[in-house]
């Protein structure tokens, strides 16, 4: 006589199916998509003062840089500079050129790997000192020195 699936068999199948679905969805959910982005935000204009010798970034006026793992860009048109400011750790910042030395396209900060990665097809990778970790770029990104003055970064250009 034919018999249908027992409750235990049905539950077994359900557990297996549920396991598969969870395993497939963990990293693909919309929240994960938002947390890493190729699109670096612009630094708040009110936080930046451009001077003859460099620029000053008032961190208290730069919410985009407050969170550890954040980054923001600033453009100094008078010097044709595109900079990216990275906040990888508490009280640690890095200021580098934002343009890849291979094809000149922009780089963005990958917080999970702690690197800068070009957004273009060949996606050269640089460390936070600007050194090339993976080509095809051959030259490092320019890294700009700065000092902390109170709650501001004073960057020498």
């Amino acid at each position, binding site marked *: 006589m034919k018999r249908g699936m027992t409750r235990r*068999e049905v539950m077994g199948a359900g557990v297996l199916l549920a396991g*598969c679905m969870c395993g497939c969805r963990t*990293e693909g959910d919309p929240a994960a998509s938002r947390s890493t982005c*190729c699109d670096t935000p612009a630094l708040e204009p009110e936080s930046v003062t451009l001077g003859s010798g460099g620029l000053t970034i008032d961190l208290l006026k730069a919410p985009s840089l407050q969170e550890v793992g954040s980054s923001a860009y600033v453009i100094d048109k008078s010097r044709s500079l595109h900079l990216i400011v990275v906040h990888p750790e508490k009280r640690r910042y890095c200021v580098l050129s934002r343009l890849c030395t291979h094809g000149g396209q922009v780089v963005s900060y*990958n917080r999970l790997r702690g690197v800068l990665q070009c957004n273009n097809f060949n996606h050269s990778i640089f460390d936070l000192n600007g050194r090339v970790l993976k080509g095809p770029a051959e030259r490092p990104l320019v890294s700009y020195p700065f000092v902390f003055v109170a709650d501001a970064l004073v960057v020498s250009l």
Partner: protein
Amino acid sequence: MLRRWLAPICLAGVSLLPACASGPGLSARPWRNPKDGMTFLRVPAGSLTAQVSAEPNGFVPQEVTFTDGFWLGRTEVTVGQFARFVKETGYVTEAEKAGNRFTWRSPGFPQDASHPIVYLSYNDALSYARWAGVDLPTEAEWLYACRAGTTTKFYWGDIVDDRYLWHRCNTQGTGTRPVALKRPNAWGLYDMVGNAWEYCRTGDGDTCFALRGASWTRCPQYRTRQGTMTGNLLEEAVEPRLQRCDPYPKYPPYPWDDDRGFRCIRRTVPAPEYLR
């Protein structure tokens, strides 16, 4: 007892079904390559309308017909399969020979045997395919199989859908993912978009290639240095346009990368000469 275990497996393990031992005949049944264990799925006969370069008008549409269909690897070739090839043949990849900092053994992020193989050159991919008794698809074959009869931008629709692909945002830029975790296309092929770029043959035999399908490093879109938002970069990777060899590339070709892999094809008839 057997029935007790069989029922859950049947419900959950659809992917276990396509395992056949014989060579590919004209049936639509999957074929399992005994050399590397890859399952090949039947891609039916049909045609693809692609843009091809034509002087002086740029590109013109051309219909490419596949009269006999072919078999295409269900997934990208995996690290485990490539390791078997290396173990059997002692093959050394071009990146290894060049002393590159990263290679398939150490690509700069964690991988296990189920991930797509990366850090191969086009020649490495060809060497593997020859060993496995198969070939690399032409760009036209790849595009036709990728679209799987659909007419939308992607095989699932017109906008990026994370249920179907791994890209730079949903991997958080941390590396490849095991093959076949996302949804396949209508012909059962996994990761045709995302995870690893795939080498394809283009017009000139073994010397020219195209990369199709995008990868885990590809941004869906981003703002360029001029401040304009790029077009859909993933869409470009599956656009039905056949490339031609560029004798004067803007930048020297980069021979391997951490997101370049491949899948193989098995044909019953040779690819038309103009596609090889």
